[in-house]
C-alpha cells in the first residue's frame, strides 16, 4: 500500500509541476472568465456612449415622432434639411449620424440609410428597424380602415411563455424548467465525457512513456504491475481533479471580481443582492407569484430560473456524478492503460483506440438525444450498459429517473468495472514487457489467459 502511495505521489507531482500544466491551469480560467465577461463589457461600452442622430425625410413627414428617444440615443427630426448639406457638417454639429428616410420605404425595404463615421451598433439598428417596421405595419393596416384598430392591436399583441410543472409519484408538484434540466444534463454529460477521455488518454500516454523509455522493468521488479497501473491511474485522476477545482475556483473568483469592479451599475449586482430574499421566500415562490411581482420583471424571471435550478435533485446528482466519474474513469483508464502497454509507440494506438472511442462518442450522442427525449428506450438501455451509462445516466438524471434504474445501472457498472480492471491488469502485465511485436486483439486475448 505504501508503495502505491509513492507511485501516486510521483505521478501527481511530476505532472502538476510541468510548465504546461501550470500555464493551462492558470490560463483557462482567464479565458473562461473572458468569455463570460467580454460580451457584457462590450454591451456596456455600447450603452455608455450617447448618440444623437439627425433624422431627415425627403419631402414628407410620414415618420415624424415615430422614433422614440432611448437612454442612449436621441433622434432629432430635421425638416427642410438637405442630406447633401448635412453630410459634411453633421459631426461638427454634434450628431453621431444621419438617418435618411425616403418615403418609398413603405414599399421598398431598403430605401433608408444611416450615414455615420463609425460602424453603428447592432442595438441601435434593431431599435430603428423595429420602430419603423411597426409604424409601417400600422400605416398599412390603417389603409384598411378598420374600426377601433388601436384596441384590436392591443388585444392581438401576445407573448407566450410555457410554465412546466412536474408531478412526482407522491403527488408533490414542482415547477421545473426543461431548459434548466437540459442545461444541467448537457453540462454533466459533457463534463463526464471530457474527464474520462482526457485523463484516460493521459494514462495511456504515461504507460507508453514508461514502456518506451524502458523504465518499466526496473519498476516492476520492485512493485507489482497492478500497483504501478493503479498508482498511475489514481495519480492522474488526482491531477485532473486538482485542475478542475482550480479552474472552478479561479473562474468564479475572476468573474466575481470583474463583475463587482466593472459592472457595478448593472442589473447583475442587483440580482445577486436580491437572491437571498427570494430564497427566504422560496416556499411561496413555487405556487404564488405575489412575491416576484413586486420586483422588476427581469428579476422575477431570474429568481424563477434560480428556483428551477434549485428544484433539481442536487444531492442525487452529486452522488451519482461522483460514483459514475470514479467507476467510469477507472473502467476506461484501465482499458487505456492496457492499450498503452500493448503498443510500442503512440502511432500504433490507432487500431485499438477506435473500438474504445466508439462507445464514448456513442454515449455522448445518446446523451444529446436524451435531452430531446429523456424517456426514449435508447436512452434507457444506454444508461444501463456500463460502457455508456456514466455519460447517458448523468444526462438523464435531471429529468428524473426511477431509483431502481439507477440502482441496476450502478450494480452493472460495478461488476463491469471490476472485470475490466482485472482484465486490463492481466494484459498490462504481459504487454509492458513485450517489445517489437505488432500486437493484435487476438494477441491481447492470449495474454489474458497467461498464468501469473
Amino acid at each position, binding site marked *: 500500500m*505504501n*508503495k502505491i502511495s*509513492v*507511485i501516486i505521489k*510521483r505521478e501527481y507531482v*511530476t505532472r502538476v509541476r510541468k510548465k504546461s500544466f501550470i500555464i493551462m491551469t492558470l490560463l483557462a480560467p482567464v479565458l473562461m472568465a473572458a468569455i463570460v465577461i467580454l460580451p457584457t463589457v462590450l454591451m456596456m461600452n455600447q450603452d455608455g456612449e450617447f448618440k444623437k442622430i439627425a433624422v431627415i425625410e425627403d419631402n414628407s413627414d410620414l415618420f415624424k415622432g415615430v422614433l422614440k428617444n432611448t437612454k442612449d440615443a436621441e433622434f432629432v427630426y430635421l425638416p427642410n434639411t438637405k442630406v447633401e448639406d448635412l453630410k459634411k457638417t453633421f459631426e461638427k454639429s454634434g450628431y453621431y449620424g444621419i438617418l435618411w428616410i425616403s418615403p418609398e420605404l413603405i414599399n421598398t425595404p431598403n430605401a433608408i440609410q444611416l450615414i455615420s463615421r463609425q460602424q453603428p451598433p447592432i442595438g441601435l439598428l434593431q431599435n430603428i428597424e423595429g420602430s419603423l417596421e411597426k409604424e409601417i405595419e400600422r400605416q398599412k393596416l390603417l389603409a384598411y380602415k378598420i374600426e377601433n384598430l388601436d384596441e384590436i392591436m392591443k388585444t392581438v399583441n401576445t407573448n407566450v411563455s410555457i410554465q412546466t410543472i412536474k408531478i412526482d409519484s407522491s403527488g408533490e408538484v414542482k415547477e421545473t424548467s426543461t431548459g434548466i434540466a437540459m442545461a444541467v444534463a448537457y453540462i454533466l454529460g459533457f463534463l463526464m465525457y471530457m474527464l474520462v477521455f482526457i485523463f484516460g488518454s493521459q494514462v495511456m500516454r504515461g504507460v507508453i*512513456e*514508461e514502456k518506451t*523509455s*524502458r*523504465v518499466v*522493468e*526496473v*519498476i*516492476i*521488479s*520492485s*512493485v*507489482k*504491475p497492478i500497483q504501478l497501473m493503479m498508482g498511475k491511474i489514481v495519480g492522474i485522476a488526482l491531477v485532473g481533479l486538482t485542475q478542475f477545482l482550480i479552474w472552478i475556483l479561479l473562474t468564479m473568483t475572476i468573474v466575481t471580481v470583474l463583475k463587482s469592479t466593472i459592472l457595478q451599475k448593472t442589473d447583475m449586482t442587483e440580482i445577486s443582492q436580491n437572491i437571498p430574499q427570494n430564497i427566504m421566500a422560496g416556499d411561496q415562490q413555487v405556487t404564488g407569484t405575489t412575491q416576484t411581482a413586486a420586483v422588476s420583471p427581469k428579476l422575477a424571471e431570474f429568481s424563477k430560473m434560480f428556483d428551477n435550478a434549485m428544484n433539481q435533485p442536487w444531492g442525487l446528482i452529486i452522488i451519482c456524478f461522483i460514483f459514475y466519474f470514479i467507476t467510469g474513469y477507472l473502467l476506461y483508464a484501465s482499458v487505456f492503460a492496457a492499450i498503452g502497454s500493448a503498443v510500442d509507440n503512440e502511432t500504433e494506438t490507432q487500431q485499438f483506440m477506435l473500438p474504445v472511442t466508439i462507445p464514448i462518442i456513442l454515449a455522448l450522442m445518446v446523451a444529446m438525444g436524451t435531452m430531446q427525449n429523456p424517456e426514449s428506450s435508447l436512452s434507457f438501455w444506454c444508461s444501463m450498459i456500463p460502457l455508456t451509462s456514466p455519460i447517458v445516466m448523468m444526462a438523464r438524471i435531471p429529468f428524473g429517473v426511477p431509483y431502481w434504474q439507477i440502482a441496476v445501472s450502478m450494480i452493472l457498472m460495478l461488476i463491469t468495472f471490476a472485470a475490466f480492471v482485472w482484465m486490463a491488469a492481466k494484459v498490462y*502485465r504481459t504487454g509492458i*514487457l513485450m*517489445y517489437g511485436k505488432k500486437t493484435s486483439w487476438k494477441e491481447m486475448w*492470449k495474454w489474458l489467459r*497467461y*498464468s*501469473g
Partner: protein
Amino acid sequence: MALFVKSVALCVTKKILHRVAQGSTEYQRDFFYIYTSFEIIINYPPMALFEAKNVTKQYGNQLALDNVSISVPNQCIYGLLGPNGAGKTTLIRIINQITGPDSGELFLNGKKLMPDDVQLIGYLPEERGLYKKMKVGEQALYFAQLKGLTKAEAMKRLKYWFKKLEIIDWWGKKVEELSKGMQQKVQFVTTILHEPKLLIFDEPFTGFDPLNTKIIKDEILFLRERGATIIFSTHNMESVEELCDNITLIDKAKTILEGSVDEIRSKWAANEYDLVFDGDVKIEGNGHYNILKQQKDNNKSIIRLKTTSNISTNDILQTVMKSGSVISFNPALPSMNEIFIRVVEARN
C-alpha cells in the same frame, strides 16, 4: 539440507534445555558449548543463497524454460550465459517475480521466495531506462522508496554513492541531459542502494567506456566482499572469466552446462598443453602427442600439443626438454568464449 540441520539442532537444544530445567547442573557447561556451536550452525547462511528447482515456463506454445535448475552459492558471482533467446531473461524475470513459473520452486536463503522478498533483490535489467524528464536525484529517491527505503535513509545512501561514483554534480540535472554512461551509473546506484542480498545484473557493462567498466567491476567485487551474491548475465565472455565463480549455460530453454568456471575450463582443456621454449625451437609429434600449432614470438617458440595416449606430463616434459630450454609448460585452458561456441554449436 540447511533446513534439516536446523531442525535437528533445534531438537537437540530443546532436549538439553529440558534437562537443565530439571536441575542437573553437570549438563550446564556442556549445554553452553553445544548450544553455541548449534547457534553457529543455525545462523550460518545456507550454502546456496538462491535456488531454482525444475523451473518450467511456457509462452503460448513456445517453451521458454524447460526444467531448469540453478543453485547460487552465497557470496558467489554466478554467470548466467546463453545465446540470444535462450531463456535467460525469462529466468531472471521469474527470479524477480515479474512473471511466475508454470511449475518449479524458488528458494531464497533456504526459504520459499515470497512477494516481499523483492526488497532483498536488486535487479539491473538489460532493457533499462529512466524517466527522461525527471531529475536525477528525485528519480533515484523514487526508486529507492519503491524498494522500501525511507526517504531520509535513501537520501543518506544516495549521497554516499553519488559521491563515490563522482556523479553528485548531476543530482539536479534532468536525465535527458546525461550521457548514456552517466545514466548507467545512476541506474547502477539505484540497483544496489537498498543493499540487497541478491543482485542480478543483466549486461551491466554495455554503454560504459573501459575506465567506467573497471570502476563498476571493482564495485561489483566490493559488493560481493560485503556479503552480496551476484547473478550476472552477459555475452562478454572475458568478463565471465574475470568475475564469475560459477556459471550455468542455457540454450533453447535447457541447461546444457553448469559448474565452476575453473572446473569447466580444465574439463574442456581436453589434454592440450602449451609449451614455451627460449629461442627458435621446433619439435615433432610422436605416438604420444600431436603438435597442434607452432609459432614464433619475440625470440620465443610457442607450441600447443595434444596428448593421444595416457602419457604423464613428466614424460612429455622429459621428451621435449631435449629439444631446447623450456620456459613454461601449462595445460591449455580454452577460453569461455571457445567453450560457449563449441557447446552451443555441438547442439545445433
